[in-house]
Protein backbone atom coordinates (compact mmCIF):
# COMPACT_ATOMS: atom_id res chain seq x y z
CA UNK A 1 0.00 0.00 0.00
CA UNK A 2 2.86 2.30 0.84
CA UNK A 3 4.46 1.57 -2.45
CA UNK A 4 1.89 3.54 -4.37
CA UNK A 5 2.05 6.43 -1.95
CA UNK A 6 5.63 7.06 -2.82
CA UNK A 7 5.46 6.70 -6.55
CA UNK A 8 8.45 8.86 -7.37
CA UNK A 9 11.11 6.24 -6.91
CA UNK A 10 9.43 3.19 -8.37
CA UNK A 11 9.09 1.86 -11.85
CA UNK A 12 5.84 2.60 -13.71
CA UNK A 13 5.34 -1.14 -14.06
CA UNK A 14 5.38 -1.71 -10.30
CA UNK A 15 3.15 1.30 -9.77
CA UNK A 16 0.76 -0.13 -12.36
CA UNK A 17 0.71 -3.50 -10.62
CA UNK A 18 -0.03 -1.90 -7.25
CA UNK A 19 -2.67 0.40 -8.65
CA UNK A 20 -4.30 -2.52 -10.41
CA UNK A 21 -4.29 -4.55 -7.22
CA UNK A 22 -5.72 -1.69 -5.15
CA UNK A 23 -8.40 -0.93 -7.71
CA UNK A 24 -9.29 -4.60 -7.88
CA UNK A 25 -9.66 -4.77 -4.11
CA UNK A 26 -11.57 -1.48 -4.00
CA UNK A 27 -13.96 -2.80 -6.63
CA UNK A 28 -14.50 -5.83 -4.43
CA UNK A 29 -15.67 -3.43 -1.73
CA UNK A 30 -12.47 -2.96 0.28
CA UNK A 31 -12.58 0.58 1.76
CA UNK A 32 -8.93 0.43 2.81
CA UNK A 33 -7.82 -0.16 -0.74
CA UNK A 34 -9.85 2.81 -1.88
CA UNK A 35 -8.46 5.11 0.78
CA UNK A 36 -4.97 4.03 -0.29
CA UNK A 37 -5.86 5.20 -3.78
CA UNK A 38 -7.17 8.41 -2.24
CA UNK A 39 -3.88 8.97 -0.41
CA UNK A 40 -1.94 8.30 -3.59
CA UNK A 41 -3.90 10.53 -5.91
CA UNK A 42 -5.40 13.31 -3.80
CA UNK A 43 -2.61 15.76 -4.65
CA UNK A 44 -2.80 14.97 -8.36
CA UNK A 45 -6.50 15.65 -8.49
CA UNK A 46 -6.17 18.76 -6.35
CA UNK A 47 -3.49 20.23 -8.64
CA UNK A 48 -5.54 19.43 -11.70
CA UNK A 49 -8.56 21.21 -10.26
CA UNK A 50 -6.65 24.03 -8.60
CA UNK A 51 -5.93 26.15 -11.68
CA UNK A 52 -9.38 25.66 -13.12
CA UNK A 53 -11.39 27.24 -10.33
CA UNK A 54 -11.29 30.64 -8.71
CA UNK A 55 -10.45 29.79 -5.12
CA UNK A 56 -8.89 27.04 -3.12
CA UNK A 57 -12.04 26.29 -1.13
CA UNK A 58 -13.78 25.36 -4.38
CA UNK A 59 -10.75 23.35 -5.43
CA UNK A 60 -10.95 21.41 -2.17
CA UNK A 61 -14.69 20.87 -2.44
CA UNK A 62 -14.41 19.60 -5.98
CA UNK A 63 -11.44 17.38 -5.11
CA UNK A 64 -13.49 15.80 -2.31
CA UNK A 65 -16.42 15.31 -4.65
CA UNK A 66 -14.19 13.57 -7.18
CA UNK A 67 -13.33 10.81 -4.72
CA UNK A 68 -16.89 10.42 -3.49
CA UNK A 69 -18.08 10.08 -7.08
CA UNK A 70 -15.24 7.69 -7.83
CA UNK A 71 -16.31 5.42 -4.98
CA UNK A 72 -19.92 5.63 -6.02
CA UNK A 73 -19.20 4.75 -9.64
CA UNK A 74 -16.24 2.46 -9.13
CA UNK A 75 -18.00 -0.48 -10.72
CA UNK A 76 -18.11 1.47 -13.99
CA UNK A 77 -14.37 1.84 -14.10
CA UNK A 78 -12.78 -0.61 -16.47
CA UNK A 79 -9.23 -1.43 -15.71
CA UNK A 80 -8.00 -1.04 -19.26
CA UNK A 81 -7.02 2.58 -18.61
CA UNK A 82 -5.16 4.37 -15.84
CA UNK A 83 -7.15 4.93 -12.68
CA UNK A 84 -5.71 8.43 -12.39
CA UNK A 85 -6.86 9.27 -15.91
CA UNK A 86 -10.34 8.12 -14.87
CA UNK A 87 -10.14 10.41 -11.82
CA UNK A 88 -9.18 13.30 -14.10
CA UNK A 89 -12.23 12.62 -16.23
CA UNK A 90 -14.43 12.75 -13.12
CA UNK A 91 -12.63 15.93 -12.04
CA UNK A 92 -13.15 17.56 -15.41
CA UNK A 93 -16.88 16.79 -15.25
CA UNK A 94 -17.03 18.05 -11.68
CA UNK A 95 -15.44 21.35 -12.73
CA UNK A 96 -17.89 21.64 -15.62
CA UNK A 97 -20.78 20.92 -13.23
CA UNK A 98 -19.42 23.54 -10.85
CA UNK A 99 -19.49 26.25 -13.50
CA UNK A 100 -22.84 25.09 -14.80
CA UNK A 101 -24.57 25.25 -11.43
CA UNK A 102 -22.70 28.25 -10.02
CA UNK A 103 -25.14 31.09 -9.41
CA UNK A 104 -22.68 33.88 -8.92
CA UNK A 105 -19.06 34.54 -9.70
CA UNK A 106 -16.94 33.46 -6.80
CA UNK A 107 -14.41 36.14 -5.96
CA UNK A 108 -10.79 35.17 -5.96
CA UNK A 109 -9.75 34.20 -2.52
CA UNK A 110 -7.02 36.40 -1.16
CA UNK A 111 -6.66 34.16 1.83
CA UNK A 112 -5.02 31.46 -0.25
CA UNK A 113 -3.03 29.24 2.07
CA UNK A 114 0.67 29.56 1.82
CA UNK A 115 2.34 26.85 -0.23
CA UNK A 116 4.01 24.28 1.90
CA UNK A 117 7.30 24.36 0.04
CA UNK A 118 9.82 27.20 0.21
CA UNK A 119 12.50 27.51 2.79
CA UNK A 120 11.73 31.01 3.97
CA UNK A 121 8.55 32.83 4.73
CA UNK A 122 9.36 35.48 2.13
CA UNK A 123 9.79 32.86 -0.59
CA UNK A 124 6.56 31.24 0.43
CA UNK A 125 4.73 34.52 0.25
CA UNK A 126 6.22 35.25 -3.16
CA UNK A 127 5.19 31.85 -4.40
CA UNK A 128 1.68 32.39 -3.08
CA UNK A 129 1.39 35.69 -4.93
CA UNK A 130 2.64 34.13 -8.11
CA UNK A 131 0.30 31.18 -7.73
CA UNK A 132 -2.59 33.58 -7.49
CA UNK A 133 -1.32 35.51 -10.50
CA UNK A 134 -1.06 32.35 -12.63
CA UNK A 135 -4.44 31.15 -11.45
CA UNK A 136 -6.11 34.41 -12.47
CA UNK A 137 -4.44 34.19 -15.87
CA UNK A 138 -5.44 30.54 -16.30
CA UNK A 139 -9.04 31.33 -15.50
CA UNK A 140 -9.21 33.63 -18.51
CA UNK A 141 -8.22 30.87 -20.94
CA UNK A 142 -10.75 28.81 -22.81
CA UNK A 143 -11.90 25.55 -21.30
CA UNK A 144 -9.87 23.51 -23.81
CA UNK A 145 -6.77 25.56 -23.16
CA UNK A 146 -7.10 25.14 -19.39
CA UNK A 147 -7.66 21.45 -19.86
CA UNK A 148 -4.59 20.86 -21.99
CA UNK A 149 -2.31 22.89 -19.69
CA UNK A 150 -3.65 21.19 -16.56
CA UNK A 151 -3.09 17.78 -18.08
CA UNK A 152 0.37 18.68 -19.33
CA UNK A 153 1.79 20.42 -16.28
CA UNK A 154 -0.33 19.38 -13.31
CA UNK A 155 -1.13 15.83 -14.33
CA UNK A 156 2.18 15.31 -16.13
CA UNK A 157 0.58 13.70 -19.17
CA UNK A 158 2.54 13.36 -22.41
CA UNK A 159 1.05 14.80 -25.58
CA UNK A 160 0.10 11.29 -26.66
CA UNK A 161 -1.69 10.65 -23.37
CA UNK A 162 -3.53 13.96 -23.56
CA UNK A 163 -4.64 13.14 -27.10
CA UNK A 164 -5.92 9.77 -25.97
CA UNK A 165 -7.61 11.23 -22.91
CA UNK A 166 -9.37 13.98 -24.84
CA UNK A 167 -10.03 11.92 -27.96
CA UNK A 168 -8.09 14.32 -30.15
CA UNK A 169 -5.24 13.90 -32.61
CA UNK A 170 -1.73 14.61 -31.33
CA UNK A 171 -1.30 17.39 -33.88
CA UNK A 172 -4.45 19.06 -32.59
CA UNK A 173 -3.21 18.79 -29.01
CA UNK A 174 0.17 20.32 -29.94
CA UNK A 175 -1.56 23.23 -31.67
CA UNK A 176 -3.94 23.71 -28.74
CA UNK A 177 -1.03 23.61 -26.30
CA UNK A 178 0.78 26.30 -28.26
CA UNK A 179 -2.28 28.55 -28.41
CA UNK A 180 -2.87 27.99 -24.68
CA UNK A 181 0.69 29.04 -23.79
CA UNK A 182 0.44 32.08 -26.06
CA UNK A 183 -2.80 33.08 -24.35
CA UNK A 184 -1.27 32.47 -20.93
CA UNK A 185 1.79 34.60 -21.83
CA UNK A 186 -0.56 37.35 -22.93
CA UNK A 187 -2.60 37.16 -19.73
CA UNK A 188 0.56 37.16 -17.65
CA UNK A 189 1.76 40.13 -19.71
CA UNK A 190 5.01 38.39 -20.42
CA UNK A 191 7.47 40.07 -22.71
CA UNK A 192 10.64 38.68 -24.06
CA UNK A 193 13.48 41.14 -24.08
Amino acid at each position, binding site marked *: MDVIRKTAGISPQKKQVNEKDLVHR*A*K*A*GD*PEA*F*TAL*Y*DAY*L*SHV*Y*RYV*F*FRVADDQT*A*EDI*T*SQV*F*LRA*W*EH*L*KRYRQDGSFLAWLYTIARNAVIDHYRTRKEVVPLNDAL*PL*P*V*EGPTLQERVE*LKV*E*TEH*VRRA*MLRLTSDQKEV*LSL*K*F*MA*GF*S*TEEIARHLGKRE*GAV*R*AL*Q*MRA*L*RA*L*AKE*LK*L*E*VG
Partner: protein
Amino acid sequence: MMQMDESEINEDQLALVLDECLSAILSENASLDDCLARYPYHAEQLKLLLVAASKINRHKTLEPTQAFRNQARHELMKYISSHEYKSVPVYRFALILASLVIGFLTTGTALAQGALPGDRLYEWKLASERAWRWTATDHVSVDIKLAERRSREVLAVSGDPERSLRAHQEYQYAEMVLISEIVPENKARITSVIQTQRESLEKSGITLTPVDEITPLQPEPVETPAGPSELRMPSQIPSSIPFVTVVATPDLMPTAMSAVPALTEPAVLPPVVSTPNK
Protein backbone atom coordinates in the same frame (compact mmCIF):
# COMPACT_ATOMS: atom_id res chain seq x y z
CA MET B 1 -2.06 32.00 -50.57
CA MET B 2 1.49 30.81 -50.64
CA GLN B 3 2.27 32.95 -47.64
CA MET B 4 -0.66 31.45 -45.72
CA ASP B 5 0.58 27.94 -46.45
CA GLU B 6 4.04 28.85 -45.29
CA SER B 7 2.73 30.39 -42.10
CA GLU B 8 0.59 27.32 -41.45
CA ILE B 9 3.62 25.12 -41.95
CA ASN B 10 5.60 27.35 -39.62
CA GLU B 11 2.87 27.15 -36.99
CA ASP B 12 2.84 23.37 -37.21
CA GLN B 13 6.62 23.28 -36.98
CA LEU B 14 6.61 25.64 -34.02
CA ALA B 15 3.95 23.55 -32.26
CA LEU B 16 6.07 20.45 -32.83
CA VAL B 17 9.28 22.11 -31.65
CA LEU B 18 7.50 23.53 -28.59
CA ASP B 19 6.18 20.09 -27.74
CA GLU B 20 9.65 18.57 -28.04
CA CYS B 21 11.09 21.31 -25.84
CA LEU B 22 8.41 20.83 -23.20
CA SER B 23 9.04 17.08 -23.17
CA ALA B 24 12.75 17.70 -22.74
CA ILE B 25 12.18 20.19 -19.93
CA LEU B 26 9.53 18.16 -18.12
CA SER B 27 11.01 14.70 -18.38
CA GLU B 28 14.69 15.16 -19.13
CA ASN B 29 15.29 18.20 -16.94
CA ALA B 30 16.63 20.21 -19.87
CA SER B 31 16.85 23.95 -19.32
CA LEU B 32 15.15 26.69 -21.28
CA ASP B 33 18.50 27.75 -22.72
CA ASP B 34 19.21 24.18 -23.84
CA CYS B 35 16.01 24.24 -25.86
CA LEU B 36 16.62 27.62 -27.38
CA ALA B 37 20.10 26.53 -28.38
CA ARG B 38 18.71 23.36 -29.90
CA TYR B 39 16.20 25.28 -32.05
CA PRO B 40 17.80 28.63 -32.90
CA TYR B 41 15.47 29.19 -35.85
CA HIS B 42 12.42 29.24 -33.55
CA ALA B 43 14.20 30.64 -30.51
CA GLU B 44 12.51 34.00 -30.44
CA GLN B 45 8.97 32.64 -30.51
CA LEU B 46 9.84 29.67 -28.33
CA LYS B 47 11.22 31.77 -25.52
CA LEU B 48 7.94 33.50 -24.71
CA LEU B 49 6.02 30.22 -24.74
CA LEU B 50 8.57 28.41 -22.61
CA VAL B 51 8.62 31.22 -20.05
CA ALA B 52 4.83 30.98 -19.82
CA ALA B 53 5.17 27.22 -19.44
CA SER B 54 7.71 27.66 -16.66
CA LYS B 55 5.28 29.89 -14.75
CA ILE B 56 2.69 27.16 -14.53
CA ASN B 57 5.22 24.34 -14.26
CA ARG B 58 6.56 25.92 -11.11
CA HIS B 59 3.35 24.87 -9.35
CA LYS B 60 3.41 21.22 -10.33
CA THR B 61 4.36 20.27 -6.78
CA LEU B 62 1.46 22.20 -5.29
CA GLU B 63 0.01 20.25 -2.37
CA PRO B 64 -3.31 20.54 -0.58
CA THR B 65 -3.09 21.54 3.06
CA GLN B 66 -2.79 18.81 5.63
CA ALA B 67 -5.99 20.05 7.27
CA PHE B 68 -7.92 19.55 4.03
CA ARG B 69 -6.30 16.19 3.42
CA ASN B 70 -7.37 14.96 6.86
CA GLN B 71 -10.86 16.39 6.66
CA ALA B 72 -11.50 15.04 3.17
CA ARG B 73 -10.23 11.63 4.19
CA HIS B 74 -12.55 11.62 7.18
CA GLU B 75 -15.51 12.59 5.00
CA LEU B 76 -14.62 9.93 2.49
CA MET B 77 -14.52 7.25 5.15
CA LYS B 78 -17.85 8.41 6.48
CA TYR B 79 -19.32 8.35 3.00
CA ILE B 80 -17.96 4.90 2.28
CA SER B 81 -19.42 3.47 5.46
CA SER B 82 -22.84 4.95 4.68
CA HIS B 83 -22.75 3.98 0.98
CA GLU B 84 -21.74 0.39 1.04
CA TYR B 85 -20.24 -0.55 -2.28
CA LYS B 86 -21.78 -3.54 -3.98
CA SER B 87 -18.91 -5.18 -5.77
CA VAL B 88 -20.77 -7.76 -7.80
CA PRO B 89 -24.19 -6.42 -8.69
CA VAL B 90 -25.47 -9.82 -9.81
CA TYR B 91 -28.61 -9.40 -7.76
CA ARG B 92 -29.24 -6.07 -9.43
CA PHE B 93 -28.76 -7.63 -12.82
CA ALA B 94 -31.18 -10.39 -11.89
CA LEU B 95 -33.63 -7.85 -10.57
CA ILE B 96 -33.45 -5.79 -13.74
CA LEU B 97 -33.82 -8.89 -15.88
CA ALA B 98 -36.80 -10.08 -13.83
CA SER B 99 -38.38 -6.61 -14.10
CA LEU B 100 -37.89 -6.65 -17.85
CA VAL B 101 -39.42 -10.11 -18.17
CA ILE B 102 -42.36 -9.15 -15.96
CA GLY B 103 -42.78 -5.91 -17.88
CA PHE B 104 -42.67 -7.79 -21.17
CA LEU B 105 -45.17 -10.40 -20.00
CA THR B 106 -47.48 -7.79 -18.50
CA THR B 107 -47.41 -5.60 -21.59
CA GLY B 108 -47.79 -8.57 -23.90
CA THR B 109 -50.66 -9.94 -21.86
CA ALA B 110 -52.40 -6.58 -21.75
CA LEU B 111 -52.02 -6.17 -25.49
CA ALA B 112 -53.14 -9.75 -26.10
CA GLN B 113 -56.48 -9.18 -24.38
CA GLY B 114 -57.73 -7.38 -27.46
CA ALA B 115 -56.59 -10.13 -29.82
CA LEU B 116 -59.10 -12.00 -31.97
CA PRO B 117 -58.89 -15.48 -33.51
CA GLY B 118 -56.27 -15.39 -36.22
CA ASP B 119 -54.27 -12.62 -34.55
CA ARG B 120 -50.68 -13.28 -33.55
CA LEU B 121 -51.38 -12.61 -29.89
CA TYR B 122 -54.49 -14.77 -29.73
CA GLU B 123 -52.62 -17.82 -28.44
CA TRP B 124 -51.05 -15.58 -25.80
CA LYS B 125 -54.52 -14.41 -24.83
CA LEU B 126 -55.72 -18.00 -24.42
CA ALA B 127 -52.62 -18.89 -22.42
CA SER B 128 -53.16 -15.91 -20.11
CA GLU B 129 -56.78 -17.01 -19.64
CA ARG B 130 -55.65 -20.48 -18.70
CA ALA B 131 -53.32 -18.94 -16.13
CA TRP B 132 -56.16 -16.77 -14.87
CA ARG B 133 -58.43 -19.78 -14.55
CA TRP B 134 -55.73 -21.77 -12.82
CA THR B 135 -55.25 -19.12 -10.15
CA ALA B 136 -58.96 -18.39 -9.67
CA THR B 137 -60.88 -19.94 -6.79
CA ASP B 138 -64.23 -19.73 -8.58
CA HIS B 139 -63.71 -21.56 -11.87
CA VAL B 140 -67.35 -21.27 -12.94
CA SER B 141 -67.31 -17.48 -12.81
CA VAL B 142 -64.12 -17.39 -14.85
CA ASP B 143 -65.51 -19.84 -17.39
CA ILE B 144 -68.67 -17.75 -17.76
CA LYS B 145 -66.52 -14.70 -18.51
CA LEU B 146 -64.45 -16.70 -20.96
CA ALA B 147 -67.56 -17.94 -22.74
CA GLU B 148 -68.76 -14.34 -23.03
CA ARG B 149 -65.41 -13.38 -24.53
CA ARG B 150 -65.64 -16.21 -27.04
CA SER B 151 -69.14 -15.20 -28.10
CA ARG B 152 -67.97 -11.60 -28.63
CA GLU B 153 -65.10 -12.93 -30.73
CA VAL B 154 -67.50 -14.92 -32.88
CA LEU B 155 -69.38 -11.71 -33.61
CA ALA B 156 -66.20 -9.69 -34.16
CA VAL B 157 -64.77 -11.98 -36.84
CA SER B 158 -68.04 -13.01 -38.45
CA GLY B 159 -67.01 -11.37 -41.73
CA ASP B 160 -63.86 -13.43 -42.07
CA PRO B 161 -64.51 -17.10 -42.87
CA GLU B 162 -61.09 -18.32 -41.88
CA ARG B 163 -61.11 -16.61 -38.51
CA SER B 164 -64.75 -17.52 -37.94
CA LEU B 165 -63.86 -21.17 -38.02
CA ARG B 166 -61.43 -20.74 -35.17
CA ALA B 167 -63.81 -18.44 -33.27
CA HIS B 168 -66.60 -20.99 -33.46
CA GLN B 169 -64.34 -23.76 -32.32
CA GLU B 170 -63.25 -21.74 -29.34
CA TYR B 171 -66.82 -20.74 -28.47
CA GLN B 172 -67.94 -24.33 -28.77
CA TYR B 173 -65.15 -25.38 -26.48
CA ALA B 174 -65.95 -22.67 -23.88
CA GLU B 175 -69.62 -23.60 -23.88
CA MET B 176 -68.76 -27.23 -23.49
CA VAL B 177 -66.55 -26.51 -20.52
CA LEU B 178 -69.37 -24.53 -18.93
CA ILE B 179 -71.82 -27.32 -19.47
CA SER B 180 -69.42 -29.79 -17.97
CA GLU B 181 -69.41 -27.76 -14.79
CA ILE B 182 -73.16 -27.80 -14.27
CA VAL B 183 -74.30 -29.06 -10.94
CA PRO B 184 -77.78 -28.51 -9.47
CA GLU B 185 -76.58 -25.44 -7.57
CA ASN B 186 -75.38 -23.54 -10.63
CA LYS B 187 -77.53 -25.02 -13.35
CA ALA B 188 -79.82 -21.99 -13.59
CA ARG B 189 -76.94 -19.57 -13.72
CA ILE B 190 -75.01 -21.43 -16.43
CA THR B 191 -78.09 -22.16 -18.49
CA SER B 192 -79.08 -18.53 -18.39
CA VAL B 193 -75.63 -17.41 -19.56
CA ILE B 194 -75.54 -19.88 -22.40
CA GLN B 195 -79.04 -18.93 -23.43
CA THR B 196 -78.24 -15.22 -23.42
CA GLN B 197 -75.15 -15.74 -25.51
CA ARG B 198 -76.91 -17.87 -28.00
CA GLU B 199 -79.67 -15.29 -28.37
CA SER B 200 -77.08 -12.61 -28.93
CA LEU B 201 -75.37 -14.68 -31.62
CA GLU B 202 -78.63 -15.57 -33.28
CA LYS B 203 -79.63 -11.92 -33.45
CA SER B 204 -76.49 -11.35 -35.44
CA GLY B 205 -77.35 -14.03 -37.93
CA ILE B 206 -75.53 -16.91 -36.37
CA THR B 207 -77.97 -19.67 -35.65
CA LEU B 208 -77.19 -22.30 -33.10
CA THR B 209 -78.89 -25.55 -32.42
CA PRO B 210 -81.13 -25.27 -29.39
CA VAL B 211 -79.95 -26.32 -26.04
CA ASP B 212 -82.53 -29.01 -25.79
CA GLU B 213 -80.97 -30.94 -23.11
CA ILE B 214 -78.30 -30.13 -20.64
CA THR B 215 -77.35 -32.96 -18.48
CA PRO B 216 -75.86 -31.91 -15.23
CA LEU B 217 -72.67 -33.56 -14.21
CA GLN B 218 -72.40 -35.31 -10.96
CA PRO B 219 -70.21 -33.37 -8.56
CA GLU B 220 -66.76 -34.76 -8.69
CA PRO B 221 -65.66 -36.35 -5.49
CA VAL B 222 -62.29 -34.62 -5.27
CA GLU B 223 -61.72 -31.08 -6.50
CA THR B 224 -58.20 -30.82 -7.80
CA PRO B 225 -57.07 -27.69 -9.53
CA ALA B 226 -55.72 -28.28 -12.98
CA GLY B 227 -52.40 -26.94 -14.14
CA PRO B 228 -52.15 -23.68 -16.05
CA SER B 229 -51.76 -25.38 -19.39
CA GLU B 230 -54.80 -27.57 -19.10
CA LEU B 231 -58.40 -26.88 -18.41
CA ARG B 232 -60.22 -28.98 -15.92
CA MET B 233 -62.19 -31.17 -18.25
CA PRO B 234 -65.15 -33.26 -17.37
CA SER B 235 -64.59 -36.82 -16.53
CA GLN B 236 -68.11 -37.46 -17.71
CA ILE B 237 -69.23 -35.94 -20.98
CA PRO B 238 -72.92 -35.03 -21.20
CA SER B 239 -74.87 -37.41 -23.34
CA SER B 240 -76.15 -34.60 -25.46
CA ILE B 241 -73.98 -31.64 -26.20
CA PRO B 242 -75.40 -28.69 -28.08
CA PHE B 243 -73.47 -27.81 -31.19
CA VAL B 244 -72.87 -24.42 -32.58
CA THR B 245 -74.20 -24.45 -36.06
CA VAL B 246 -73.74 -21.63 -38.46
CA VAL B 247 -76.61 -21.12 -40.86
CA ALA B 248 -75.25 -20.16 -44.22
CA THR B 249 -76.91 -16.94 -45.14
CA PRO B 250 -75.93 -15.23 -48.40
CA ASP B 251 -74.82 -12.02 -46.73
CA LEU B 252 -72.97 -13.62 -43.90
CA MET B 253 -69.89 -15.66 -44.42
CA PRO B 254 -70.60 -16.58 -48.04
CA THR B 255 -67.49 -18.64 -48.41
CA ALA B 256 -67.31 -19.92 -44.92
CA MET B 257 -69.68 -22.72 -45.58
CA SER B 258 -67.60 -24.30 -48.21
CA ALA B 259 -64.47 -23.80 -46.21
CA VAL B 260 -66.00 -25.03 -43.00
CA PRO B 261 -68.22 -27.94 -43.81
CA ALA B 262 -68.01 -29.26 -40.30
CA LEU B 263 -69.92 -26.26 -39.03
CA THR B 264 -72.70 -26.29 -41.57
CA GLU B 265 -74.28 -29.27 -40.03
CA PRO B 266 -74.14 -30.81 -36.67
CA ALA B 267 -70.59 -31.92 -36.41
CA VAL B 268 -68.85 -34.24 -34.15
CA LEU B 269 -66.92 -32.32 -31.56
CA PRO B 270 -63.22 -32.69 -31.48
CA PRO B 271 -62.27 -35.44 -29.10
CA VAL B 272 -62.22 -34.24 -25.56
CA VAL B 273 -59.18 -35.16 -23.63
CA SER B 274 -60.15 -35.71 -20.13
CA THR B 275 -57.67 -35.03 -17.43
CA PRO B 276 -57.77 -37.60 -14.74
CA ASN B 277 -57.99 -36.24 -11.30
CA LYS B 278 -54.78 -36.53 -9.43
